[in-house]
């Protein structure tokens, strides 16, 4: 069957588009794989970052709790200190007053003993001792309050030492480090994702183009098939091939313009026992033999007289003839070409034959031991005979 150049061109365009699509797909797939790897790296960095954040938060809370405790303990100490200091100030003032009163009493007792009624001296002395005792009691109370402050401070120092924030700062530094790694990984993923999306768009475009060309090719192929079917039906109609034999019928168009239809054979149209119908170049039926019918001249529809042309050179008369059902034009060699034959398919004229024939026979002139067709074929000669014994 002759190739359809338009269809070939469409197919080639489709294949180019297919290759382009495949290339785009490969690029997209590679980019997708790279983006997936980058995504995994980013996710791993994110997990690390989350973990580091949690640890940092825990350290912060620990530090915060320590700080709260510190404040609470030291606030309590300050409260005690301030209350006690206030009381101490008051007690000291009172103790100083008792001391002054004690001195006055002892001075009055001494003056009464030396210059006045001696009987009043013991009274003043007793009062002096009372003030002294009272002064000492007040001083003792001050001491107790001072000791209370000192003990509260020692207790606070023991219960709430200065807050240690180093663990929090280490956790924070580590968090900042993994956060930075995560942000780098995230930026890389975003870059590769953008590249992947761009290549995906290219692939989608290439795929769309391929589908369009494939559809165009399929559509044209269907049209050509439909045309060929119409043409085939037309030939089979002209040949009068029955419907039951049409499916397997084989149609062969010859270079001489005739159309040969083989039908009704076993297995396939030109199988054993096939029928044979021939149409000339004008579509007229020239030969018609049904399946399993005998070969013979009765099958020639118009049985035109076979033509012949005078011989030329070392070749005898050129004649039309038949080999089985195969129309041929042929001549035999004379003189130097004796024993040789020129032959081609179909019933053709002299001019056509001179340029379109095969040459068969022994190499009688030079006794090379080879056959002429082998020698000329080696030199690139074309073949024009396709019948029996070719």
């Amino acid at each position, binding site marked *: 069957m002759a190739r359809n150049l338009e269809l070939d061109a469409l197919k080639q365009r489709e294949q180019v588009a297919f290759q382009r699509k495949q290339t785009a797909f490969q690029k997209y797939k590679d980019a997708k794989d790279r983006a997936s790897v980058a995504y995994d790296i980013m996710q791993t960095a994110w997990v690390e970052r989350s973990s580091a954040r949690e640890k940092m938060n825990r350290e912060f809370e620990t530090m915060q709790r320590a700080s709260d405790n510190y404040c609470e303990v030291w606030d309590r100490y300050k409260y005690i200190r301030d209350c006690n200091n206030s009381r101490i100030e008051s007690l000291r003032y009172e103790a100083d007053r008792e001391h002054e009163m004690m001195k006055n009493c002892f001075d009055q007792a001494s003056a009464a003993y030396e210059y006045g009624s001696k009987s009043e001296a013991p009274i003043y002395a007793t009062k002096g001792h009372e003030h002294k005792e009272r002064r000492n009691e007040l001083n003792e109370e001050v001491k107790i309050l001072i000791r209370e402050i000192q003990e509260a401070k020692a207790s606070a120092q023991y219960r709430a030492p200065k807050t240690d924030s180093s663990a929090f700062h280490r956790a924070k530094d580590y968090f900042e480090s993994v956060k930075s790694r995560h942000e780098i990984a995230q930026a890389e993923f975003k870059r590769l994702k953008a590249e992947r999306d761009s290549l995906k768009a290219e692939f989608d475009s290439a795929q769309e183009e391929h589908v369009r060309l494939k559809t165009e090719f399929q559509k044209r192929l269907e049209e050509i098939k439909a045309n060929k079917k119409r043409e085939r039906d037309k030939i089979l109609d002209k040949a009068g091939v029955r419907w039951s034999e049409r499916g397997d019928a084989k149609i062969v168009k010859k270079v001489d313009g005739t159309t040969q239809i083989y039908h009704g054979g076993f297995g396939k149209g030109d199988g054993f026992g096939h029928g044979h119908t021939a149409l000339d170049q004008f579509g007229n039926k020239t030969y018609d033999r049904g399946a399993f019918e005998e070969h013979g001249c009765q099958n020639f529809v118009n049985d035109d007289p076979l033509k012949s042309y005078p011989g030329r*050179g070392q070749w005898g008369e050129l004649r039309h003839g038949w080999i089985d059902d195969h129309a041929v034009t042929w001549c035999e060699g004379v*003189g130097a070409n004796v024993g040789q034959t020129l032959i081609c398919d179909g019933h053709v004229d002299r001019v056509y034959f*001179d340029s379109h024939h095969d*040459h068969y026979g022994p190499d009688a002139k030079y*006794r*090379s031991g080879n056959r002429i067709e082998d020698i000329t074929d080696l030199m690139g000669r074309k073949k024009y005979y396709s019948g029996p014994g070719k």
Partner: protein
Amino acid sequence: MSNEKIIQEIKELYEKYIIKDVDEFCVDDYNKFEEEIWLLKEKYQLKDSPFLLLPEPAREADYEMMNASNDGLVEPEIKDKAIYLEKMKISYSKI
């Protein structure tokens, strides 16, 4: 029968049909040369083909001309004629 006579006759056939300018040479010259060489077989009662008496590269030239002229039925192209004549002149020079 004399070999010398046959050779002489072959030489004359070369001169009559082959030893020409390419513009003068035509496919009929080729056919006539072939025909008359073959006639020598009967004329001199040769057992073998008289073409075997043609010095090389006559055979090679003949095969090429066979293709170029479609077995002597069409006029070959000038370049093919030139190649044929060139080889046949070499053959002639060896006679």
